[in-house]
């Protein structure tokens, strides 16, 4: 046990916790006024439901002893053997802190999906999907990448969750958009409160330092490196998005700036502790450019991903995973990528991308299909017109 590591990780846990309320602001501000609270509700429901399910069984399925590279065993079922000891992944901090850190990741990942189905899903269907998705998709993914599963054994690099958090949530988001169909066109889809989105995005950036630097699980050089790559990539992401937006639409926008920041954050997440500092700026800048094009994909392909989970987390996460395979350097964290002579690492990263998208998309579609057999997924057209705040929750965000 190391006191410095423990202090740092305690703080990181609280940083990452704040990201989910920040996401509620970020998504809430982007929604229409009539769906503001319902959209925020998804994040807080995740904090409630996923925390408890994670404690009961999610944690042990992800980080319990490895069963055939696929899933964890029941050694920590109901948090048995967690208090007092340490976990092998993080031998210098209390097991409770490691568990809590991973808990915040699970909560955030489930909440991220909500940007896709916002504005039309029934709350009960959303809650059931989220609970099942944790066990069917998140726990296997976390185990495969971080819990000693087959992707870890293959050598896939995912420092803080490019596959487990961002690609997985985006694949689920794509499945949700396909399963639910588009929102009804009622007036304009313009955001109701961009200042809240900017505040939420700013707090996400802040929380991401805990997310990425904390993923070092120690407080030394690696955490510092991850913190700096995160900040550099985010700043570069802003510039990337601003450049292409300014060129294409004639004006830079605040939503573009915060979207570019998020694109940079997502893109650096898998490589934060593996790629050199200079490469983080390139990864972030290109992340901003690519995600701008990514959010326009939905117009081409015709799915209604309401708040661009696929465009930012899916496209940015995929780019980040591949960029890690390109730029990883053994001088940083012991593994080389394509640019440092190890092309196999790029292949491994590509395998992890395909496996994540395919597994999570298929399983999420199956979950939605199963749920649709026992309850409607969407609210009625009337309820959608009135807005989900009133029809699903009996309250409204603004009484002006």
């Amino acid at each position: 046990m190391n006191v410095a590591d423990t202090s740092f990780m305690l703080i990181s846990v609280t940083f990452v916790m704040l990201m989910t309320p920040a996401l509620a602001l970020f998504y809430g501000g982007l929604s229409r006024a009539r769906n503001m609270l319902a959209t925020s509700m998804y994040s807080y429901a995740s904090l409630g439901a996923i925390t408890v399910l994670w404690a009961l069984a999610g944690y042990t399925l992800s980080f319990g002893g490895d069963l055939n590279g696929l899933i964890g065993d029941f050694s920590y079922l109901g948090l048995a053997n967690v208090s007092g000891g340490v976990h092998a992944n993080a031998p210098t901090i209390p097991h409770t802190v490691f568990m809590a850190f991973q808990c915040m990741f699970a909560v955030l990942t489930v909440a991220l999906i909500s940007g896709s189905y916002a504005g039309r899903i029934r709350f009960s269907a959303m809650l059931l999907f989220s609970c099942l998705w944790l066990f069917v998709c998140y726990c296997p993914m976390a185990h495969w990448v971080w819990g000693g599963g087959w992707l870890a054994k293959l050598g896939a690099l995912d420092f803080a969750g490019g596959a487990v958090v961002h690609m997985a949530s985006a694949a689920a988001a794509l499945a949700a958009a396909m399963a639910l169909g588009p929102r009804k066109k009622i007036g304009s889809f313009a955001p109701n409160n961009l200042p809240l989105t900017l505040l939420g995005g700013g707090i996400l950036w802040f929380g991401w330092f805990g997310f990425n630097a904390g993923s070092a699980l120690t407080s030394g050089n690696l955490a510092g490196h991850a913190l700096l790559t995160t900040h550099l990539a985010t700043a570069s992401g802003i510039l990337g998005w601003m450049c292409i937006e300014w060129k294409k639409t004639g004006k830079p926008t605040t939503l573009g700036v915060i979207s570019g920041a998020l694109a940079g954050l997502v893109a650096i997440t898998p490589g934060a502790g593996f790629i050199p500092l200079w490469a983080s700026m390139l990864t972030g800048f290109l992340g901003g450019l690519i995600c701008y094009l990514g959010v326009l994909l939905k117009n081409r392909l015709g799915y209604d991903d309401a708040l661009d989970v696929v465009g930012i987390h899916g496209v940015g996460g995929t780019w980040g995973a591949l960029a890690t395979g390109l730029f990883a350097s053994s001088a940083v964290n012991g593994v080389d990528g394509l640019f440092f002579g190890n092309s196999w690492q790029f292949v491994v990263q590509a395998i992890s991308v395909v496996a994540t998208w395919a597994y999570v998309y298929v399983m999420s579609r199956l979950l939605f299909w199963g749920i649709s057999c026992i309850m409607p997924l969407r609210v009625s057209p009337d309820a959608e017109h009135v807005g989900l705040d009133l029809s699903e929750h009996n309250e409204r965000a603004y009484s002006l």
Partner: protein
Amino acid sequence: MKKLQIIVRPGMLDAVREALQGLGILGLNYTEIHGYGRQMGHTEVYRGNVMQVDFLPKLSCEVVLDDEKLESAITAICDATRTGHVGDGKIFVTEVLDAIRIRTGERGKAAL
């Protein structure tokens, strides 16, 4: 007596008020409205997606005044709110049959 419905840009409220007060015309109310005229709406861009906004925010001010002050009021309002660009707004003039001050019961011009 005439009633003016003055539709102007959102930032022009003080200009209208000062123009009318300068002529000694007291009593004015306004409503925030959304509408379109000949210029139609405008476009907004969110994450690269261009959205057509059909109704623009405007202010609609109402004032009732004596017939003799009509032309000078119209001139003053136009001078105060004109930018020369599309979207400056319009003034509609209608006849008013009577006016009553509730407190005193005065009628007609005396009630203005």
